[in-house]
């Protein structure tokens, strides 16, 4: 397994280089202009100079190699310097990947935005899983019962109604209709500047997280509970379940040890494969609740034609996807003894 992992990691290098190049190509071919948002009164020569200062006059491959140098060499070296004080080369004046619109290093922007995204989207994912798994198990065990029917109905709604609808609906109900003094009132705007240093602040933080987390959790849980249910049903009719019962095992043991263990194999894979979405996928929900996370950062970058920001962020999403594909494969091998990679 270790051999396999190392080999796979090794193979991700050319894959990721290729992906980064394709992203760069696409962005370069896209009809965008970083000076497009500047006032119309700026004369064309000045615009041309601004472009030059951004390095846009160089040929495409030069710009790509420069980005590679900045991202793959300078940024890791800078991290080493900032975290461990290891200085290799010129540590103070290294050229880093800089955002065109804010002039600050892209990696710093990402680090700044990461906590909000991880808290809101990550939490919604955890909540979604915690809701979905028991619902899936019970729905399958009591197939066609009331519980199953209602669960099916709700997950159909959760899956088919987009988050920009459920999000706005929740805002209308909990922020508009409900009186602001009420206990049930929830803020519609996520306040990133809130510092949690007391129980009162913690309570505020929880309250402002409830709506975005619930919107995303409903969507995630809807998908996952269907998947869990299908996987359980597949296994419940297997012969080994009958064997387990014939051995005199308790129904709980049969279900939660024998059947669940088998049913989790595909579900865990799906969960692992969708972890990258936690980092990049909640763009719409982040916009609705004004959570300034990574999704929002990407949107701003796209709107401002901030190529280095979009390039870097998209590439990091790509890395996560490639990485969690590997994680899913490894988990699959760990959970299913029939799979051997070596």
């Amino acid at each position, binding site marked *: 397994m270790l051999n396999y992992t190392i080999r796979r990691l090794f193979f991700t290098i050319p894959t990721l280089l290729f992906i980064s190049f394709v992203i760069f190509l696409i962005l370069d071919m896209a009809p965008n202009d970083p000076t497009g948002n500047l006032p119309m009164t700026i004369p064309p020569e000045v615009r041309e100079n601004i472009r030059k200062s951004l390095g846009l006059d160089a040929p495409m491959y030069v710009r790509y190699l420069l980005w590679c140098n900045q991202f793959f060499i300078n940024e890791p070296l800078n991290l080493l310097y900032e975290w461990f004080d290891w200085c290799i080369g010129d540590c103070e004046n290294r050229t880093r990947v800089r955002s065109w619109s804010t002039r600050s290093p892209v990696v710093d922007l990402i680090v700044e935005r990461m906590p909000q995204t991880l808290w809101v989207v990550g939490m919604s994912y955890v909540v979604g899983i915690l809701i979905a798994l028991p619902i899936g198990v019970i729905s399958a065990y009591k197939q066609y019962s009331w519980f199953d029917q209602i669960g099916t109905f709700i997950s159909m709604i959760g899956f088919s109604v987009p988050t920009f609808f459920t999000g706005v609906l929740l805002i209308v109900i909990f922020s508009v209709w409900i009186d602001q003094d009420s206990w049930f009132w929830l803020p519609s705007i996520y306040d990133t500047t809130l510092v949690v240093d007391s129980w009162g602040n913690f309570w505020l933080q929880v309250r402002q997280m409830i709506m975005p987390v619930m919107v995303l959790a409903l969507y995630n849980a809807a998908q996952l509970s269907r998947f869990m249910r299908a996987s359980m049903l597949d296994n419940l009719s*297997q012969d080994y379940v009958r064997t387990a019962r*014939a051995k005199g095992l308790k129904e709980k043991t049969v279900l939660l040890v024998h059947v669940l*263990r088998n049913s989790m194999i595909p579900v865990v894979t799906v969960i692992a494969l969708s972890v990258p979405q936690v980092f990049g996928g909640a763009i719409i929900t982040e916009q609705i609740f004004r959570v300034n996370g990574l999704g929002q950062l990407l949107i701003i970058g796209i709107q401002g034609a901030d190529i280095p920001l979009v390039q870097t962020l998209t590439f990091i999403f790509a890395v996560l996807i490639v990485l969690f594909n590997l994680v899913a494969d490894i988990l699959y091998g760990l959970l299913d003894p029939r799979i051997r990679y070596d």
Partner: protein
Amino acid sequence: MLDARATILDVANLKTVFNTRDGMVHAVNHVSFSLAPGELLGIVGESGSGKSVTMMSLLKLLPMPPAEITDGDITFDGRDVRAMSDDELRRVRGGEIGFIFQDPMTSLNPVFTVGFQIMEPLRIHLGLNKKAARIRAAELLELVGIPDATARLKDFPHQFSGGMRQRVMIAIALACDPKVLIADEPTTALDVTIQAQIIELIKELRQKLGMAIIWITHDLGVIAEIADRVAVMYAGQIVEHAEVSELFKNPQHPYTRALLETLPDMSGTRSKRLRSIDGQPPALGKAPSHCEFAPRCTHAFDRCLKENPKRRDVSDNHDVACWWDAKTGGAADA
């Protein structure tokens, strides 16, 4: 019917139905049989004749609903099984009655080691701790003829061949020294040489351990080899029941006779065409109101289509449910 001897398991008038969306399916229709300690009862019948459902009904191993036991008494070791609580039932399952199923490729849980699966019944029924259970599990694997038993406890089912897996299933079934072993077509999914090995193994284990066995099969050849008594099932009913030699010598029911005729003849040099029974087994949507075999029967007469025959004694240890008398070739007296 014979009942002079002591019985370990007695089933009387068992009726099991399935409540499906398309109506009731009468899978087992008033089946009665008994089993003496140490005896091997063979149950023969074609697919869908209710053999497996009968056995699964005994310990409520069928999914309920849709299955439902609507009538009958099941007495195991002097206790009423139908009145048992879930806990009591679980103690009997795997503890006092062991099961072996048809397909060893799917009967074991693929994600747990063989050792874990053998140790499970040992731990819950005999209360052994992990270490003791492991030792006993290795003994069991050795008993069923798996070499290098202790090392193989750590292996997963996919690392065993079909025959070996069936041996593992036998080890699980015999783990707690059951009084009765129910083998539901244990050799059907295996190739012929492995089949012979498994039959030999069970014969041998029976001599060693002395448990009673119910052996379900559709293979009359296997029955002839191992059974003491045979019950022939058709459409969820026992149509004939006799000591094994008596049944092969003196079959009474036209269905039994037809079954015996379908066996290939190994003695002659010239190969004859294999015989088959014309027609299809009945759908079980209605409770039997007449002899279910009558539409396929060469000896059927008007009574067969009006009344369902009860089992009548032909001789000691031999009974048949048929209106036709094989001896006279006419209607039976009853």
